């Protein structure tokens, strides 16, 4: 069965510090990978996605993620976090586009301290 693993349930960083959120996926041919952010009580907003090509993808709000096939990872990074980045972050995957569903990780809650 497909799976997405986010090993960190909760991360706390200081404002201005760098951030890396981990995501590992069960291997599948040509994985399509996504990062979503969810602010409290809000919906899911797409930060970035990887389909093919350059393994370093840029997203909105200054986020980037790097696809590493050898490690089955798609970690999310930001060089300097802002207080407004406090939210829940979900990594997700599909194996191919047809009508296939997204499989989500369990999420990482990010807390920002002054």
């Amino acid at each position: 069965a497909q799976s997405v693993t986010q090993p960190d349930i909760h991360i706390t960083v200081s404002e201005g510090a760098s951030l890396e959120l981990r995501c590992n996926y069960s291997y599948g041919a040509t994985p399509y990978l996504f990062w979503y952010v969810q602010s409290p009580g809000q919906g899911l907003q797409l930060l970035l996605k990887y389909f093919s090509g350059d393994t370093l993808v840029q997203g909105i709000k200054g986020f980037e993620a790097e696809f590493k096939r050898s490690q089955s990872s798609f970690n999310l990074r930001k060089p300097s976090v802002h207080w407004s980045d406090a939210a829940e972050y979900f990594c997700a995957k599909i194996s191919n586009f047809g009508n296939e569903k997204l499989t989500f990780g369990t999420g990482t809650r990010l807390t920002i301290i002054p």
Partner: protein
Amino acid sequence: EPEVTQTPSHQVTQMGQEVILRCVPISNHLYFYWYRQILGQKVEFLVSFYNNEISEKSEIFDDQFSVERPDGSNFTLKIRSTKLEDSAMYFCASRKEYGYTFGSGTRLTVV
């Protein structure tokens, strides 16, 4: 930017009652989905809908659940007889090619 619209944003219902959650997907999208998120847990797939029929459903999506696209614009999720464990945030999503767009969700509280 086109949006997926969900109504209501919050619904409280008594156990055993029927509820209908409504969604207006993006107009030129072809694939439609419902997901749910129980408080504190991950987002789970419920059902996908394409070409006016269910294309895949999860084991969560039992006979108490149904979906419809009655008029070419709305996409509804019906729960016939709600249970306490149906309390969750329900997200609608639509897709045309490579990007899913999610609505802001309906928080369903069953009391």
